[in-house]
């Protein structure tokens, strides 16, 4: 892909993606074992996060990584746009995608528990190009709700795509 095509693609995505909702949703079923295995990676021993199933546990905050990454793969890889009358994926080469940062907001959110069924949707925020290295940056605002429609977490993912990937 030459520089002119890379620039043209970047301009198209900047003009069209901001505020765009990503079609569909990702579903994540939260299992007791997954929560415990995740918490143990970080040496967490408090029974609130790793205690017996029958006593009831909740997810440690780091578990937000689990559902965010799962949702990202599903939502971004499947996303399509129409450019010059032709359908194209957002990511032309997923191998060029970089994870540049994350914000997790839990204000007003409920705890995440085993058995919860998460519904994850997302829409694009700001999209911009750093011309020095032609890396395209985009903010993805994610809503994570449980089976009762209650917010569990509101992540904002910063994605960066290297030239050739968009």
């Amino acid at each position: 892909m030459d520089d002119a095509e890379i620039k043209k693609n970047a301009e198209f995505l900047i003009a069209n993606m901001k505020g765009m909702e990503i079609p569909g949703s990702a579903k994540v079923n939260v299992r007791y074992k997954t929560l415990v295995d995740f918490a143990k990676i970080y040496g967490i021993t408090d029974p609130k996060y790793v205690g017996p199933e029958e006593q009831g546990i909740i997810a440690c905050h780091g578990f937000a990584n689990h559902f965010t990454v799962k949702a990202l793969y599903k939502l971004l890889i499947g996303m399509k746009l129409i450019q010059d009358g032709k359908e194209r994926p957002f990511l032309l080469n997923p191998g060029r995608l970089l994870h540049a940062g994350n914000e997790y907001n839990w204000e007003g959110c409920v705890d995440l528990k085993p058995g919860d069924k998460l519904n994850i949707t997302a829409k694009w925020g700001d999209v911009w190009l750093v011309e020095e290295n032609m890396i395209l940056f985009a903010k993805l605002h994610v809503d994570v709700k449980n089976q009762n429609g209650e917010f569990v977490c509101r992540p904002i993912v910063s994605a960066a795509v290297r030239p050739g990937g968009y």
Partner: protein
Amino acid sequence: MVKVVDLNVGQEFKNEFDGITRELLRSYAKASGDTNPIHTNDAVAERAGLKGIIAHGLFSFGFITKLFEDLLNQEQDGKILDISVDMRGMVRCGDHLITKAVIDKIEGKRVYFNVSQTTITNVDIKDKDGNIVKQFEAGERGYITDKDIAKGLVHEKEVPEGILTYRERVATPGTAVIELFE
């Protein structure tokens, strides 16, 4: 119990982790669902130009949330409201990961922190004649770049076996907000 009156601007909280191994990253891959082989398979990572596996971008994040969970006595003393991080430097097996949170401001029961995660990467230990007596993964695989040296990130210090060369850099700067109950 942690209360607002016990906290001051500039106060620092810290945890350190010295156990980043291939086995741990395989466990994290399974638990997180991020099974990209650049985090678990050296051959794949080398083909991607990475010289060896790198930790998942969000792997280190769990040590930030743990720091605040511990500070808040597993949220018996308050709630974690927001944590935001930029992922700037790769974290690798053998790195010593230091997570720090420094209080930036306090507004009512809300406490705002600047967060940073620093990696210490050991390269090698040389004797007084400059012979390598111990080489670490970063030295074997060439993780340290000329750019690291130019940026002044590579240092030396005396250790019992000789002179240790290591790199120290901030991998993850960020911010956090908690709200205390009292």
